[in-house]
């Protein structure tokens, strides 16, 4: 006997047996999330409209997000110890916790809600509003990821965690919002502090003590997690977690290769599903994500070999920071305007473009810290801009859409500098685009369209097309 949601789940890559097996969990989680038969038609048409569901890998990726959602919503009922972290995540600690105990569930719930309740069901608005009503009001450029997280908890959709791993190495908002979660729900916090004090002109160099500091804070957070969760981190947890997630990293490098093709074989919305998953899940989502990615890359290699792509050959190629986590209409904006997007900052920093870590460090914390440093997140504004610069040649770019997230201070520091810098260094046109990549209520596709279309026309004219 099928049910009302079978169509959607098979569109999202679930096999028939999987749906059968998952049925009680789907129903229990949908009840908490307030999803019912009335939501299915819109969800199915949204998924088909915005995602390249002709690719099995994409369907499976959507499925991986749904599985992560179900596990998140039911984590308390499953009797697991729940740990939330912020985005952008330092994933290593979460992976280590997972590798040490199967009873621990570690996730970035805001990203999960964005990709499912937002991208698939278009029901993120009320969750964000609940976040606004619980300490993160509108009009103050506060982070919409945090509004989703606190809103989700306030609405009883996702459980109150046992521990918050605060990604305060990068963002002031995250650690303070964790303080809010403590004030509201009494959740203990393990702060992962870092210091972004690189000087302009320092990249690719960096002070070793900066890596040492973040590393020590990660190690300290792990000790706190052991205490709070009542677990012992296995001596080989680091090696095992590295091994488990290695295929993902390898695949990101492979993906960068595939994206060098003209025409580009896949769209930004698909890249986004994948990149975001790599920074949001440590459990079933990431494991399923790895499988989906294998299928997807294989399919994309096939497209490249056959000379197929989603855009015309010769379409102007741009790099953006990232796609939209909750509204694929915004993500699709660039391709709708005729621009190919072979690379994002996330892919560049996690994949083939970042400088190689020197590997001078021994503890897991420091190894993770150095990875964050060389990826640019922990280094700062200059390192991030230099990754764009480096990508210009590598991906044969024609321009940049230099997004800055208005409500994300660590990213907004880049706002005006990136345009000036990239224009001077690469000679390529740069569109400076103020955006909220997590919440499209104020920065909708419609409000951004004129700028993106004009820029696309500029690039086409320059290319003589």
């Amino acid at each position, binding site marked *: 006997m099928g049910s009302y949601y079978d169509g959607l789940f098979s569109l999202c890559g679930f096999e028939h047996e999987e749906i059968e097996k998952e049925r009680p969990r789907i129903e229990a989680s949908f009840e908490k999330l307030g999803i019912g038969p009335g939501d299915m038609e819109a969800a199915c048409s949204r998924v088909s409209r915005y995602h390249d569901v002709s690719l099995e890998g994409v369907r499976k990726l959507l499925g991986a997000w749904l599985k992560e959602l179900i596990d998140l919503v039911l984590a308390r009922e499953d009797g697991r110890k729940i740990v939330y972290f912020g985005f952008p995540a330092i994933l290593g600690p979460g992976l280590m916790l997972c590798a040490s105990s199967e009873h621990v569930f570690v996730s970035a719930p805001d990203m999960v809600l964005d990709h499912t309740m937002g991208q698939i069901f278009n029901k993120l608005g009320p969750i964000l509003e609940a976040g606004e009503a619980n300490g993160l009001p509108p009009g103050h450029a506060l982070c919409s990821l945090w509004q989703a997280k606190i809103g989700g908890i306030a609405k009883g959709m996702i459980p109150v965690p046992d521990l918050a791993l605060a990604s305060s190495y990068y963002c002031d908002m995250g650690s303070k919002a964790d303080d809010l979660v403590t004030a509201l729900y009494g959740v203990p916090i393990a702060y992962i502090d870092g210091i972004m004090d690189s000087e302009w002109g320092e990249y690719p160099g960096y002070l070793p003590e900066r890596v040492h500091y973040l590393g020590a804070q990660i190690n300290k957070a792990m000790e706190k997690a052991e205490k709070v969760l009542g677990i012992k981190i296995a001596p080989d947890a680091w090696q095992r977690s590295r091994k488990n997630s290695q295929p993902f990293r390898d695949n990101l490098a492979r993906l960068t290769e595939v994206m060098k093709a003209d025409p580009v074989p896949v769209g930004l919305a698909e890249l986004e599903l994948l990149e975001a998953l790599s920074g949001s899940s440590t459990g079933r989502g990431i494991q399923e994500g790895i499988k989906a990615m294998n299928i997807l890359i294989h399919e994309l290699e096939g497209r490249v070999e056959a000379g197929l792509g989603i855009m015309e050959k010769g379409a102007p190629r741009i790099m953006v920071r990232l796609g939209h986590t909750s509204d694929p209409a915004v993500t699709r904006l660039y391709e709708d305007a005729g621009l190919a997007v072979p690379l994002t900052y996330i892919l560049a920093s996690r994949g083939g473009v970042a400088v190689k870590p020197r590997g001078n460090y021994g503890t897991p914390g420091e190894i993770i810290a150095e990875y964050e440093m060389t990826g640019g997140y922990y280094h700062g504004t200059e390192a991030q801009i230099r990754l764009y610069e480096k990508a210009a040649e590598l991906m044969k770019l024609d321009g940049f859409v230099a997004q800055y997230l208005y409500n994300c201070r660590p990213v907004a520091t880049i706002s005006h500098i990136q345009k000036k810098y990239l224009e001077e260094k690469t000679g390529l046109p740069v569109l400076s685009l103020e955006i909220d990549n997590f919440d499209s209520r104020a920065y909708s596709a*419609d409000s951004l369209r*004129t*700028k993106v*279309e*004009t820029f696309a*026309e500029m690039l086409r004219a320059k290319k003589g097309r």
Partner: protein
Amino acid sequence: MLVAGVDVGAATAKTVILGDGRILGHAVNPVGYDIKSAADETSREALRKAGLSPSTKNFDYVVSTGYARESIEFADKTVSEIICHARGVHYLIPSARFIIDMGGQDSKAIEIGEEGNIVDFVMNDKCAAGTGRFLEVMAHILHVASMDAMGPLALGSKEPCPISSTCTVFAETEVVVLRARGKDRKDLIAGVHKAVASRVAVMAANLACRPVAVFTGGVAKNAGVKKYLEEEFKTEFLVPEEPQITGALGAALIAQAQLLRK
């Protein structure tokens, strides 16, 4: 060959009709709630003015632009208004290299090349402080009949009253307070104009303002804003005879090019 450019913005709808490369007629109308009928009506009016039968079916090709460009059913193609403004200004003033366009809800600064191509541009984000809307709000509280009528009044001021608020809503309060304090009306009006010009100048600070500079859009009819823009940018701004229709004109020129390409 009969082509049209239709530009539907926040405040007005504009249509320009070209026949064999010549401007045959144009019309500008306010937009009410019904955008489609405003576009339709304006286009028919332009046809009437051109002495042609008033049916949009007569057009061989139509390009629509402006924020409501997607809703114009009789358009064959949509193009963003920044491109259209550049094209329209280049046609009227081939030596133009820099454009400030100020409309009802948007303001744009555009750097253009020798061919009328766009070199760089900026457009306001979520803020009405440098737009026509700001002036309209101010005209209302200063009891001036219209935004355009404020311009000449501003020119009479020797000492514009500084308006410091960055936000339209706050600035409104600020002007109310200053009015209550008995500030001279023309100084207040001049202050309002100066504030608009300075917002746009900051927005465009990173573009190269090279002569010939051109000022377009509904606000360009306002002599006060023009004066203060010239002070801010330290250059003279030319204003086309019909500054509101450059976008529609550009759209019509693109329509013509499309048809020739076919």
